[in-house]
C-alpha cells in the first residue's frame, strides 16, 4: 500500500481526554493529488483526528508518517514545517485588514535598513498573482476581508495556505454554512488544487452528497473508529446514510 506518492498516513491513533475516548485506533492515508473526505457526526472523533494531523493534539498511541517517514508532530509549528497547513472555518482571517495583508500575515515582505518597512507594493503584486494562480476572483486585493462573502474569505484562507507552500492541506468543514453558489466557489478551488497534483487534501465535512462530489475517497468516523472507507465512485449518499442509520439503531437497541 506504500505508494511513492503517499503524502501523509496515520496508523492506529488513540486519543483519550480523561475518561472519554475520542479516537480508538483510527487510521488514514492520503496521496498527493488526492482528496480524502472525513465524514461523521459531531463528537465522532474527526476533529480530534484532524487536530492530531495539525500537531495541535498529540496521540496517546499510534504513529503519523509524512512522505513515508515516521514523524512526531509535537506542535502546530512542527507540522507546518513539514508542509501541513490547516484552514479553519472563519478563524483564519483578520476582517479589518486588506486581502493582501491577510495573505501575507506574519510572512510580510519588508524593505529598508536599519528600520524594516512593509513592502506594500510587492505584497500587492504577489497577492494578485497568487490569487490568479488558484483562480480566485476578488474585487480588489486592497479591500478589507470583512467586506467579502463567506465563500471568498474561505477561498482566500485556502490560497494563503497554498501560497505558504502547504503540501498537505487540511480543511475543517470548508463548505459549512455556505450557500450553493458560495460552495461552488470552494469546490472549483479544490478541484484546481487537485489538478496541480502536488497537494494532498483532507477535508472534514457533514454533507454526504457534496463530499462525494469533491473527494476521491471518503471515510466514515464513528465513536472514534473508522467504520467505513471507500472510493467516492464506489459508494453513494444513500449507502453512507444507511451505515449511519444502522449504527444509530444498534446504539438505541444496546
Amino acid at each position: 500500500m506504500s505508494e511513492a506518492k503517499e503524502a501523509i498516513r496515520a496508523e492506529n491513533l488513540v486519543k483519550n481526554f480523561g475518561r472519554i475516548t475520542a479516537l480508538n485506533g483510527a487510521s488514514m492515508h492520503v496521496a498527493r493529488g488526492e482528496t480524502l473526505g472525513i465524514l461523521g457526526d459531531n463528537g465522532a472523533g474527526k476533529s480530534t483526528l484532524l487536530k492530531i494531523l495539525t500537531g495541535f493534539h498529540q496521540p496517546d498511541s499510534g504513529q503519523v508518517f509524512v512522505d513515508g517517514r515516521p514523524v512526531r508532530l509535537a506542535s502546530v509549528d512542527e507540522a507546518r514545517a513539514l508542509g501541513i497547513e490547516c484552514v479553519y472555518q472563519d478563524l483564519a482571517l483578520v476582517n479589518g485588514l486588506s486581502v493582501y495583508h491577510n495573505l501575507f500575515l506574519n510572512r510580510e515582505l519588508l524593505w529598508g535598513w536599519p528600520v524594516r518597512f512593509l513592502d506594500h507594493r510587492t505584497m500587492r503584486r504577489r497577492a494578485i498573482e497568487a490569487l490568479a494562480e488558484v483562480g480566485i476572483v476578488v474585487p480588489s486585493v486592497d479591500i478589507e476581508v470583512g467586506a467579502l462573502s463567506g465563500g471568498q474569505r474561505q477561498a482566500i484562507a485556502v490560497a494563503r495556505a497554498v501560497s505558504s507552500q502547504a503540501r498537505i492541506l487540511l480543511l475543517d468543514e470548508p463548505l459549512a454554512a455556505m450557500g450553493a453558489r458560495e460552495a461552488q466557489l470552494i469546490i472549483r478551488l479544490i478541484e484546481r488544487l487537485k489538478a496541480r497534483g502536488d497537494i494532498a487534501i483532507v477535508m472534514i465535512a457533514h454533507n454526504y452528497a457534496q463530499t462525494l462530489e469533491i473527494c476521491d475517497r471518503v471515510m466514515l468516523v464513528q465513536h472514534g473508529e473508522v467504520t467505513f472507507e471507500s472510493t467516492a465512485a464506489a459508494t453513494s449518499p444513500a449507502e453512507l446514510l444507511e451505515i449511519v442509520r444502522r449504527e444509530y439503531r444498534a446504539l438505541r437497541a444496546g
Partner: protein
Amino acid sequence: MAEGAAGTTLTSRAFGLLLRPEASVVVVSVALVLYFQFANAYFVSTANVQTLSQFVAAPVIIACGEIMLLICREIDLSVGQVFALAPFLMENINDVGVPEPLAIVAALAVCALIGLMIGLITIGLRVPSFITTLGMLFLITGLTLTISRGYPANTAGGPVLTGIMGAWAYSEIVWALAIVAVMHVLLRHTRWGLHTVAIGGNLLAAAEAGIAINRIKIGNFVLTSTLGGLTGLLEAFRVGSIDPLAGGSNIMFLGVASGVIGGTAIAGGAGTIIGGLVGGIMLGILQDGFTLQGINAFTFDIVIGAAILIAMIANIHLARLRGGGPQ
C-alpha cells in the same frame, strides 16, 4: 469610455475618503473654525493659534499611545499619572547630581519600566488592562504625592534645553507632530503596526499565524507610558513648574477621546494615528472656541461628552456604509 471609468474611480475614491472617520472630523473642525472666527475675530490670531497648539499637543501625544493599545484591545488608564510622575522623577534624579539631559532620559526609562510592569501584570497574570491600570492609577498618584510631599517644584535646566523641551511657544506642537509622523509610519508601514491591528481584529487568527501577541501588547504598554512621561515633561517645561496634580485622568480621557473621535474602535482592530491628531485638534478648537466666547468649563464638559457620543454614532454607521469594519 476609459475616461469615464477613471472618473468613476476618482469619484468613488473621493467618496470613500469622505466616509473615513477622520474626514468627517476634519469637516466638522473646519466648520467650527469658521463659526468661532465669525463669532470672535480673535479666534484665528497668532496668540490664539499658539494657545490652541499648546492645548492640542498633550492630548495628541497621549492619544498616539492609547490608539495603539485600543487597536490591540487594551487600554491604559494610568497614563495621566505617569505624566505627573515623570517631571518629579527628573527633578529628583537631577538633584542627586545627574545632568538634566540624562535625568530626562532616566525619567523616561522609569516611565518605560512602569509600562513594562503594566504589560507583564496584564499579560503574565492575565489581569484585564482596565484593572491593572486602574490599580496603577492610584498607586502612581500616591507615589507622586509621596515624592513631592504634595508641593509643586520648579524645572531646572538651561534655556536651550527648556526651550527644546517645551518652553518655546511652539516646541510642544512640534514634538506632537513629529511623534504623530513616527507613530503613523509605525502603525501603517511596519510589521509592529500591522500585527497590532491583526491582534485586535482577530486574536485567534493572529495566534494561528504565529504573531508574537504578548510581545506586541507589552511593547504598546511600554510605548504608551513612555509617551505619557514625555508629555508630562513637555508640559512641566512649558509651564516652568511641576505640579503633582497635573495631567491625571483628565489628560488620559482627552487622549482616549481624541482617538475615539478620530475613528479608533474601542472594540479593537481599527484606528489611525491621523484620526487621533484630528480628533485632538477638534477637541482643542471646541474648548478654545468656547473659552473665547466666555462659556465656562462646565459647559465644555457637556460639549465634549456630546462630541464623543456623536462621533461614535457617526463612526459606527460610517463603518457600515463602507461595508467593512468590525461587524
